[in-house]
């Protein structure tokens, strides 16, 4: 996937429009179509602050918190969704709550996020930094799905968390949550 992403950095998407240059943490410069770049609310905000007249010049927007390898992945996602997604109307609060509970991860995104958990977390952090809500939500959902399949011990091991409960306290909590301890769940999951 990274090969596809690296080769696609110089590609353009359909319509010839304004190009936005961004640089990653390592200083690598990427040229994005305006439509793709504006899927990030942060870039959109910066561009609006700079004003339309400055958009076409050679200024490079520095994304200091995003590594190149992660940005390449995000770029693949952005390009795909820029071409496939329809404009969504802003949701009401209740709709957002429903969406959070009911959102299913589309097949393409499932494949896209079928990577190591560390990479998913890094994409999630970058999506948060760039304020790409949809990608952030998908990553959160994927991580939540991973958590569902893990036992408490596996999670401690996975994140290096120390068990700071006393044996008595743990036993007490175990009793309270005994009814939900018998999984890993039966529902299908990506990981």
């Amino acid at each position, binding site marked *: 996937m990274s090969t596809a992403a690296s080769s696609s950095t110089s590609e353009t998407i359909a319509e010839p429009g304004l190009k936005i240059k961004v640089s990653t943490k390592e200083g690598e410069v990427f040229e994005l179509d305006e439509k793709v770049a504006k899927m990030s609310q942060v870039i959109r905000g910066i561009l609006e602050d700079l004003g339309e007249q400055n958009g076409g010049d050679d200024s490079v927007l520095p994304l200091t918190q995003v590594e190149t390898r992660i940005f390449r992945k995000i770029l693949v996602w952005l390009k795909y969704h820029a071409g496939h997604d329809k404009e969504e109307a802003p949701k009401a609060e209740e709709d957002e*709550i429903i969406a959070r*509970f009911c959102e299913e991860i589309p097949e393409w995104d499932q494949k896209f996020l079928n990577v190591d958990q*560390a990479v998913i*977390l890094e994409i999630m952090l970058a999506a948060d930094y760039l304020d790409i809500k949809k990608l952030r939500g998908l990553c959160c959902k994927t991580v939540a799905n991973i*958590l569902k399949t893990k036992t408490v011990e596996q999670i401690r091991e996975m994140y290096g*968390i120390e068990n*700071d409960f006393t044996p008595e306290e743990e036993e007490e909590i175990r009793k309270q949550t005994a*009814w*939900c301890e018998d999984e890993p769940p039966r529902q299908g999951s990506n990981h």
Partner: protein
Amino acid sequence: MDIRLAKRPAELGSKKDHGSKDCFYLKERTRKLAEVKACREAWRTCSHHLWMDVLRRLDVRTYRRLSRVSRDWQSNLQDVPRYNKGIFYLNFSTKLQFLQFKTFFPNGHECFEHIGHYAPELFFSPARCILVHTLRIKVPIQEVHIDEVRVHWEGCQFRKLDPAHGVGRKQHPPFDYVWWGKVFGVSNLSVVKKLHYRTAFGAHPLKIWLGIEPSNYEHTLWRARQKQVRLSTY
């Protein structure tokens, strides 16, 4: 088939590699360790609000289960605004089962629904279904939802180990209101307070709906028939 003739998979490398840096298992172990390390690092840099967003997407069971990870996790999970938190109003009568659910939204909005005559299976799914249902959106009932409740129910069928109270006898299963509270993550107390006096009828609609027990009506008929048989033989 003679397993000795089975060909060694190519990806495992040559047997001569064992212990060397080309050893498949060593490489795999190194890869996994690196993954865990990267995972821990990424998790440490994860901001609190982002992590809360992950936890918010957990279903009730996982949400409860993970409170055992550590104190931090427990407190984080307690901070998650659970939109499905609410009070169940269960009202048993001999003929109808009324069920009402009140949802509290963080903006102060309250949604009170009378959902007595809907398909009960909808309630058995993890929190999302009750929420979806409360907001009048229909979702297909999945077999897993019913399975999940069956598992819960079977979990209640454990036998007594305390010799003072009769070893080997089944304990009294939790009352429905306790169980419903557990399924939906509503604190038992609030449920008990509201419902205790209403459950004196002894109806167990969950079991009946699930087909674990015949309905009370059928049971009553059966008892009446037994009584008739006894009377006639007498």
